[in-house]
């Protein structure tokens, strides 16, 4: 092609490593280097551009999860470690993201169970893990300590730090060498501020992923899309406080009206398409980990990402 795309970038996205293999002191079967890009997302010719990863979100108490998942997966959702294993072996996810929804119960205090759950999941699947801590700030300190300690050496991604609530997760990241997700309410400047606060407390840049908060398609998605583009742009222009890889998780996708009120026979398909369109558009804006909840979405997204970089795709002479 007789053209050159000149943007004059001076910066690059920082690199974060998730998952530690035996060689690195962990027990994961693979370790993902995320980030490192030097230009816009998914540019076919850029050899450094990594393929976005797909994470399947699961939880340890499905009472707090969309019924669509139970309908599709059956009783699997009642055994979190089986569910994690299936995510790897059947659904083909690149990562598993575990939400500790059990901590949402009123007056939850069984921190030991959190450790047990995590241990079970670590044994059941050899994929790198993302662990989403509690909903309740009051028990953050104990929950993150338990998670961090139990998975010491595995290079987890811990979620989620926010501007008023980041100390415990940062402590766990620092103490046990994990990375963390820094979330801000669809505002680039607030994302930057949070990263600065984390840096001041000691968290290194290469241990942070940015979550600009993703509204699902039709429910604020375009705001998130533009926030991601702006973060990528600033990073490439040299702003090191925004030069972290981005994670996208449109958690409302299965609870919106369009999916909830779809005819039962079409409901799975609606859920998958909604998650797919949201996810692939987010990847085009720069998201490097796309989180989904419907198992079928995993394969659809992975096929799309795989084909995007290969020469194959559209046939000639159309």
């Amino acid at each position, binding site marked *: 092609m007789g053209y050159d795309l000149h943007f004059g970038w001076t910066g690059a996205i920082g690199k974060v490593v998730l998952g530690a293999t035996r060689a690195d002191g962990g027990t994961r079967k693979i370790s993902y280097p995320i980030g490192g890009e030097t230009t816009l997302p998914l540019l076919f010719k850029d050899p450094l551009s990594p393929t976005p990863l797909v994470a399947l979100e699961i939880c340890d108490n499905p009472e707090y999860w969309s019924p669509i998942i139970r309908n599709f997966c059956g009783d699997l959702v009642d055994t979190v470690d089986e569910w994690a294993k299936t995510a790897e072996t059947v659904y083909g996810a690149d990562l598993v993201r575990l939400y500790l929804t059990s901590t949402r119960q009123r007056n939850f205090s069984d921190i030991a169970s959190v450790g047990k759950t995590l241990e079970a999941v670590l044994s059941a699947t050899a994929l790198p893990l993302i662990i989403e801590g509690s909903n309740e700030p009051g028990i*953050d*300190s104990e929950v*993150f*300590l338990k998670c*961090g*300690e139990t998975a010491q050496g595995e290079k987890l991604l811990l979620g989620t730090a926010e501007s008023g609530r980041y*100390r*415990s997760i*940062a*402590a*766990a990241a*620092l*103490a*046990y060498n994990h990375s963390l997700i820094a979330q801000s309410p669809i*505002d*680039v*400047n607030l994302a*930057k*501020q949070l990263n*600065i*606060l984390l840096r*001041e*407390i*000691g968290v*290194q840049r290469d241990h942070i992923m940015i979550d600009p908060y993703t509204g699902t398609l039709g429910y604020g998605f375009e705001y998130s899309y533009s926030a991601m583009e*702006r973060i990528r*742009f*600033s990073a490439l*222009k040299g702003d090191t406080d925004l030069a972290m890889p981005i994670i996208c998780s449109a958690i409302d996708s299965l609870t919106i009206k369009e999916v909830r009120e779809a005819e039962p026979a079409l409901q799975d398909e609606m859920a998958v398409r909604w998650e797919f369109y949201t996810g692939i558009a987010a990847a085009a804006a720069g998201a490097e980990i796309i989180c989904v909840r419907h198992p079928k979405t995993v394969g659809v997204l992975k096929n799309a990402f795989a084909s995007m970089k290969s020469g194959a795709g559209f046939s000639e002479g159309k």
Partner: protein
Amino acid sequence: MIRGNTSMTDVEIAKKNGESYLKMMITAIQHSVSYDETAYHLPISFALTGIAVHNQKAALDVFARTSSNPLVAAECILAEKTAAEGREPSPYTGFIDDTVIRKLGYSLVDGSILGLALVVGTPKSAGSVSAICRELQEKYMLTFLAGDVVTSLSGAGVKLGLEYRLIPLGPAPAYGIHFVDIIARVAMMFGGVTPGDTHRLLTYATERAKAIVIVFSGLTDQEIAIVDGMRVLGFPILSLGDYSGGAWIPSLPEEVVRRGMEQKGIRVNVTAIPIPMGCSPAFEGKSIRKEEMYVEFGGGRSPAFELLHMRPVDEVKDGQVTVIGPEIDAVKEGGAFPLAIIVNVAGKMMKKDYEPVLERRIHNFVNYGEGSWHVAQRDIIWVRISKDVVAKGVKLEHIGKLLASKFRMDFPQLLDAVSVTLITDEAKVRAAKKVAELVYEERDARIKGMRDSDVTTYYSCTLCQTFAPNHVCVITPEHPALCGAISWLDGKIAYEISPSGANQPIEKGVVINTLNGEFEGVNKFVKKASHGEIDRCSLYSVMEYPMTCCGCFECIALILPEVNGIMVVNREFKGITPSGMTFSTLAGTIGGGAQTPGFAGISKNYILSDRFLQSEGGIGRLVWMPSPLKEELKTRLVKILTDQNRADLYEKIADETSATTIEVLISFLDRVKHPALTMKSLV
């Protein structure tokens, strides 16, 4: 070697003796020196030099490299003892392994522990040391004990152990060396300190590790040398024993914890407000009608004022509330009382400049109270307390407590101590009011007189970048933000309170063009903040490189080339202007972060600034503005024009009653002989 001596011990002398003794002892090491269950060898030595010490040779090597550091010596000696004799028996912990340290470090980072304290020596009475330890616990400090303090406490029935945050290291003060090896490990585990990076270690220990040492009597010379050796790490040594000299801080038991924490800037955050009334932003808009009120203050019925001022730290007792004069229960229901609200604040980072900004919060905080209501500011306040909450037992002192707590909660970094005085005695209120009025005047004079040339630092604001990604306002004393909401002082304070926030300092740098207000430093800043979009920015010009606009400007100033002048239109004006465009059309074109020569988004008050239209020749360029805006600014604008000997200009500025098209405006300006027509050509 001398214990329990009751005469004053000279620290310097004892230290020297002690250091010699330690030197001798380290040379006498024969066996291996090591600790189990740590990846950091002998942590202090390792952190200071990067050398893993396990035998005498290495020990001596490190000792030499660190210029015979007593802490190194103490560590090696105790390590040999531990290796040879095994761990100390319970309740002593001796050396604590890495796994536990990791947990401790976690708590330090996540804020469940605010700092670390080491308490050593032989207390005179179990009572005073128990009180000190209880205070440390209440203030979320993690306390390590070494020496007779341990037996003293356990003898008095105080529970010791990790879960009580009172950790007994060993039976002698020398075991206090573990305090240092813990901090060294935390530095290496959490602080990114590479073993051997002495400088980084010392910086971490001084600035990040909030550690204090409290010393009772009964230390041997070498123990004194060890404790004194901790000063280099930035730990204040607070002495409760008979020590003199050195840099140790003599203290009294009742104040030693407070002083130590103050020294290291450790502040306990306030989380609860202990009053019998709800307090939340949800109550902010709730008004209290006449029928609902128990008592009111000010509002024309009685004298009332509020004042927040900064005092030296030793004059403000945190949380203290004083009511001078009768309390609420002395008032008849429905009555009015005089009131003075005086908030005293102290803090290392607090500045006098911030007083008015903080004072404005009194209004919000009082309104957060479920049964309290507040209007206005300064000496025209009007406050009411409702019958409902008085029935629940709320008194004025609780309002004071509310204020003291909220100020501490909302400004944890800025304010170390807040106390509140409420006066209801009429004579005293009137007297205090006179003093307050002087303060208000002084503040007004200060801000009014501030000129751009008085300061070298301006402030930016990027709050609007959510909507206009490349826009940045440059705020100077004479040029407020275009939204009208942020002054230079507001920007300065916002920066000092939130250094990584939306307001950042801009060093002016060299002046490039005085008339236009173009500065090298400003240009550089704007270029970066606009992601390279804007190269140059003139602060006082509409025609050349004006500031970019987001979308929330109060007014737009723009060129009318046909009449060689500048017109202004404000957001509220919905009609057509002589430019042929409405405010809305103009806003749509120049907003979004664009820099449009000939067009500038400004605040209303900027129209009254000396800098307005400076580059274009001054206020004589102003040819048109909507009549309501003209009316709003009339008094102040006429004064400015009169001071410039051109009071007649006011009538020459057209408005929508005299012209709405350019053609009519031309003939109007001609008729009144507006100065802009004969000024230098703008285009």
